[in-house]
């Protein structure tokens, strides 16, 4: 029992931190620009493919630096030459723009790298066992992912709380109009935040690519969960995004570990009351629990766990 709790916690925190690497950028972009960026997970995918391509040419470590920067540049260009033009016409065209962009990126990735998963492997220097606990081994690479994710979280906190740029960004989160009136160049801030957010997603892609699977469907698999994270966490709240990422990571992992069903709680008669639902285990419905949470939060507390504003 202790064993499964330990490993579920580890796996859950890891998954949660990867989610946060994406959700942090997404929530910043969403709060500042009011754009629900449907293509955000596509930048994560681009990060994985760039990481794959660069690491097979010049090695994994350079890829860890170069790939996120490239993704950041792509993101900034998308904002500068795409989103900013569409911005004039309001939020719905912006939404449609990012929606379309996600499909375009997926198609382009398929054209370049094919539809099959690419062989993006854990670098040999990290391909060993980190520790052994209760006779189960834990790969070093996952510890490395965790370290990167925590490092990124700390860096983000420092930048947002201790620097002037961070102050402006925080102010734009809650009072975008006031910031503009104070004379700051809001479009450039937008571009920088969009670029930085994409770069973070790219970094998540570079490190998640070898651990999960680098394939054209990876963006579509992760995208919906991200929206759950930012809605549950609350708009304009990085802390909320962090809490929600961990919550969803842990909930999904622990749900897999639970075998209970309604029939176990209510006895055999559950089958009469709930039909097939009575015998479905929690583990089986694990993938839909986040969406259930999404619906609940929207009904009970539309601003999310830590949200301060609605739009």
């Amino acid at each position, binding site marked *: 029992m202790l064993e*499964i709790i330990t490993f579920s916690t580890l796996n859950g925190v890891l998954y949660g931190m990867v989610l946060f690497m994406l959700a942090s950028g997404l929530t910043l972009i969403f709060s500042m620009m009011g754009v629900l960026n449907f293509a955000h997970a596509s930048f994560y995918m681009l990060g994985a493919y760039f990481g794959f391509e660069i690491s097979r040419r010049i090695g994994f470590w350079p890829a860890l630096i170069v790939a996120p920067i490239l993704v950041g540049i792509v993101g900034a260009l998308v904002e500068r030459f795409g989103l900013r033009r569409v911005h004039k016409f309001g939020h719905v065209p912006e939404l449609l723009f990012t929606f379309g962009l996600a499909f375009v990126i997926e198609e382009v990735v398929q054209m370049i790298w094919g539809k099959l998963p690419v062989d993006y492997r854990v670098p040999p220097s990290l391909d060993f066992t980190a520790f*052994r606990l209760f006779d189960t081994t834990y790969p070093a690479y996952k510890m490395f992912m965790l370290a990167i994710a925590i490092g990124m979280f700390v860096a983000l906190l420092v930048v947002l709380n201790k620097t002037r740029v961070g102050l402006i960004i925080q102010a734009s989160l809650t009072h975008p109009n006031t910031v503009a009136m104070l004379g700051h160049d809001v479009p450039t801030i937008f571009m920088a935040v969009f670029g930085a957010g994409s770069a973070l997603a790219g970094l998540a892609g570079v490190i998640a690519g070898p651990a*999960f*699977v680098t394939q054209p469907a990876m963006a579509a698999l992760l995208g919906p969960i991200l929206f759950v994270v930012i809605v549950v966490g609350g708009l304009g709240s990085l802390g909320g995004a962090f809490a929600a990422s961990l919550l969803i990571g842990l909930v999904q*992992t622990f749900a*897999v570990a639970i075998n209970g069903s309604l029939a176990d709680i209510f006895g055999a008669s559950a089958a009469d009351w709930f039909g097939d639902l009575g015998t479905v285990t929690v*583990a089986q419905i694990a993938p839909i629990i986040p969406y259930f949470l999404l619906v609940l939060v929207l009904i009970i507390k539309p601003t999310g766990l830590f949200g301060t504003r609605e739009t």
Partner: protein
Amino acid sequence: MRRALASSFIALSVAMGSAYAADTIKIAYIDPLSGGGASVGEVGLKHFQWLAEQINASGGVIGKKLEILGLDNKTNPQESLVQAQKAIDQGAHFLTQGNGSSVGAALTDFAVKNNDRNPDKQVLYLNYAAVDPVLTNDKCNFWHFRWDANSDIKMQALTNYMKDKPNIKKVYLINQDYSFGESVRTEARKMLKAKRPDVQIVGDEKHPLLKITDFAPYVAKIKASGADTVITGNWGQDIALLLKAAADAGLQVDWYTYYAGGAGGPTAIKQSNIPDRVFAIVEGVPNDEPAETQKIEQEFRTKYGTTFWYPRVYNEVYMLAQAIKDANSDEPKAVAAKLEGMKFKTFMGGEGYMRKDDHQFFQDMYIANLGPLPAGAKFDEEGTGWGWKTQGVVKAKDTELPTTCKMDRPS
């Protein structure tokens, strides 16, 4: 708008005109070429293309060339029907599919309805891997033929082998959450109970089909259950990633699988360093193939860099060619009549036969495990140096299970 419509009509009619004038025999391959099933779908397509090339190089069938249309169904039943319609519009008389019994069920219904409504555009559905037993039992029909042993037959063979293994005490079942996974787990439970009542089932997992990218939580659960043996019908990335996560966690169990040989499987098994502990039920073992078949195996491997996974596809394509020759026509009804009851020397050299009652093909089945090869063995898997070794053979006759099929033949 009107012009666009008009021009697309012209384009359409030109395309259709050329399709009907064609003197090729079209086989539409409807399987995943993208998404989680693509790693196996792509290789399957290569099998068909290569076999068609071989047959065409020796003159084709009744003076016509075989042509394979590769159509991506994304492992989605709805998408498959769209692709099937597309194939018929392009003049295909034969559909073939294997990945996903949910897709298989949709296609077999589609074939029945289509052939009823459009007697001049009938199709056969040639199934090389969708193994849900229902397809040759309650849902059987004249237009469907299956070359892979169905799930019950495979489980029968696996459990017959497991029966004599005293080290199996605690079994964990993990399967994909759809009709096929469901049939694997219920049959495993039923047969183990009958053959090894002392075996304890310590877990019975169903997970979403082809959606999981990290099986670590599931492996942690298997580990915690204290299982010494895992039975799984997983295929595609679901088996490769499951084995990979098990390797990462250092899980030491015996595996009884249907498809551990698929892309990425052998690599993960080697990484786990569990020699001879992963078993698969297959219809062919490369190192035990007759000499002439090993030549095919070698040519295929040299050309595509992958194992000839699907001996059953060889059986399917050559039996189809034979049936077309016998009927001297590629009309689906005539071909189906010839396929019924056909006897055939299989890829592995044994005798196989297409049972007339339910259109299920029976052939010798092999239980093999993966490990270091004995000296002189030619074929390893995925460059690991490990290969499949035969542990048991079940004769075609002994794989026969009764069917509930009441075949309705068109007059």
